[in-house]
């Protein structure tokens, strides 16, 4: 099994946040977070990714101080903050629903935390001005939150949590309340602002695209523990389990048995086809494995490929047109349905395949990942 490429050329980084064997049990029985450990480096944008109920929000709330771990410790810059109340932590959070104070203006919302710190008035005014320009909201300083659009509210929430220059910024589903089109532009704005300030970030999201575009590292969570932690491309291209492969993006998984196990290649016999994988894996001959193959790595043609590996045949049962690409659903002879994604790089629809056509799917020997669990 291949491992994620290590970044040896990056400078040695300082650990900012360390979560040590943290467990959270609700009502004596429900394990929301199960023995999780993690370190976040200074300057990093770290994403906790998972479906609802996976424990990602509970973990974030423990970092903020709204929940206390049942077991384990949380350190910030070396200091144990496990039992510190939220108002004494140098951590700020941007809430999913923004939680902007409805009775205060944009200006007062941003100044709220600064006033609590007893900062002199002129410095507060200075800082708020800076934050307003960062969010490009100078014109809206005297508005109340309900007089702003969703995207503007989101930026106020962000700069309010940045105003105190926290050591750690927590983002709870930062784009969850925005519609899809706005989300894409806002994602980049958000990352730009965060990078401009240079704050370390932990963000929680259920949206894998959001995690991949924003984060420098992702932890995929399920049932209270981490399935995989790594950089976005590593998690996408080298998932370590069926769950991760399935959760991040679309995937076709072929079940099979390792037939040949060599240092430089393996073959996996599946009911549909034989996979020739162009690198060694951490399995052994006769082992039952899954072969994960992303739809965009499959090529379709009407002609039968030559060679005995890495192809299968089936009937086109569904064509889903997305504009930039088209997804074909192929019913294989074994009854299994796989998805193949073709780029629409010319204006006449590629492949010339239509419903009911017999098509051949093929891929190269580095396209798939062998999953041993």
């Amino acid at each position, binding site marked *: 099994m291949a491992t994620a490429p290590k970044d040896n050329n990056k400078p040695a980084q300082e650990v900012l946040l360390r979560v040590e064997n943290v467990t959270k049990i609700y009502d004596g029985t429900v394990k929301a977070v199960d023995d999780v450990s993690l370190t976040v480096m200074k300057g990093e944008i770290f994403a906790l990714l998972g479906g609802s109920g996976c424990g990602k929000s509970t973990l974030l709330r423990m970092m903020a101080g*709204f929940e206390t771990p049942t077991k384990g410790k949380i350190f910030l810059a070396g200091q144990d903050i496990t039992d510190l109340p939220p108002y004494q932590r140098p951590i700020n959070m941007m*809430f999913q*629903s923004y939680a902007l104070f409805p009775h205060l203006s944009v200006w007062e919302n941003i100044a*709220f935390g600064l006033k609590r710190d007893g900062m002199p008035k002129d410095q507060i005014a200075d800082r708020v001005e800076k934050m307003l320009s960062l969010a490009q909201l100078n014109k809206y300083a005297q508005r*109340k939150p309900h007089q702003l659009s969703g995207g503007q509210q989101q930026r106020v929430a962000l700069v309010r949590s940045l105003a105190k220059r926290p050591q750690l910024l927590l983002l709870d589903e930062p784009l969850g309340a925005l519609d899809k089109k706005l989300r894409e532009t806002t994602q980049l704005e958000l990352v730009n602002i965060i990078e401009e300030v240079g704050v370390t970030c932990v963000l929680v999201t259920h949206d894998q695209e959001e995690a991949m575009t924003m984060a420098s590292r992702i932890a995929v969570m399920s049932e209270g523990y981490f399935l995989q932690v790594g950089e976005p491309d590593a998690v996408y291209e080298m998932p370590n389990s069926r769950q991760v492969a399935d959760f991040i993006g679309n995937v076709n998984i072929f079940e099979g048995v390792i037939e040949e196990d060599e240092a430089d290649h393996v073959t996996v016999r599946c009911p549909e086809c034989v996979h020739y994988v162009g690198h060694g894996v951490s399995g052994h001959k006769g082992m039952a494995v899954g072969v994960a193959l992303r739809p965009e790595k499959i090529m379709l043609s009407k002609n039968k490929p030559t060679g005995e590996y890495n192809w299968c045949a089936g009937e086109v049962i569904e064509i889903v047109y997305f504009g930039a690409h088209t997804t074909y659903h192929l019913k294989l002879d074994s009854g299994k349905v796989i998805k193949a994604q073709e780029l629409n790089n010319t204006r006449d629809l590629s492949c010339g395949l239509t419903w009911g056509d017999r098509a051949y799917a093929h891929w190269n020997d580095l396209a798939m990942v062998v999953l041993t669990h």
Partner: protein
Amino acid sequence: MAEKQSFFSSVKNSLFDGRNAVIGVPYFWFLLLAAIPLLIVLKISMSEMEGTQVSSMIDWSNGWPKLTLNFASYQFIASDSLYFKTYLSSIKYALITTLLCLAIGYPFAYFMARAPKHMQPTLLMLIMLPFWTSFLLRIYAWKTLLVSNGVINNVLMSLHIIDTPLTMMNNSFSLLLGMVYSYLPFMILPLYANLSKLDLRYLEAAADLGTSPFKAFWLITVPLSKAGIIAGSMLVFIPAVGEYVIPELLGGSSTLMIGRVLWDEFFNNLDWPMASAVAVVMILIILLPMAIYNKSQADLAEGKP
């Protein structure tokens, strides 16, 4: 055919439309039970007593109607300082009652709203439980508790805590006690309704930004419950200004309240125009806080906190 249809539909749209009927019911109710009686009171206040009858405002003796408006009652209210003092005293007692209800009711409502969800209906029931007994009976009950040889004095005397009975009746203490006791639920209920809707994430956000729970209460909870505070205060203040039964039974002669003056004018002096004028001035005094209340409600409806 088409004409007939359009005729019917236009009649239907204008008169017998279900929507109009539904809107009409409260308007009719208001007209019958508030607007018309109020106009009658206004009319009486500008008339004169002729024996046991109220004079007619419109005189037809010359063949055409002659409207006579008599402002004597209003002039008398303005000239006699007793009325001014009584209005002032009524407002003072109503204001103190409102503030005491707020001071007692707010923590009450706050803890009710924060109580476990399954306990809240029970707590709400307990607040409303006194309404199951007649208001008059409850005020009489206070009388038996507070008088010199009443329950409280007897207990304190037998325990040798006091030697002589405390004077707790027929003064402003007994009046305010009765008023606060009676009006407390009207403060608690709107406050509870407001506080139970408070989004706790605002408090989390305040804590996250470095606010201690005590500070967050004053900076977030109280301002966000403004609508509840205003609603509760109006519900207490407005009826308290005109309260008659409590000052009559618990207040004694030393506590001046306009409700009793009104009663005296009406039933003892049989001066209907005077009683009506006193009532009209009282309504005008109450209209001011009502206007404030309405504005806050309108702001709320617009989404302004």
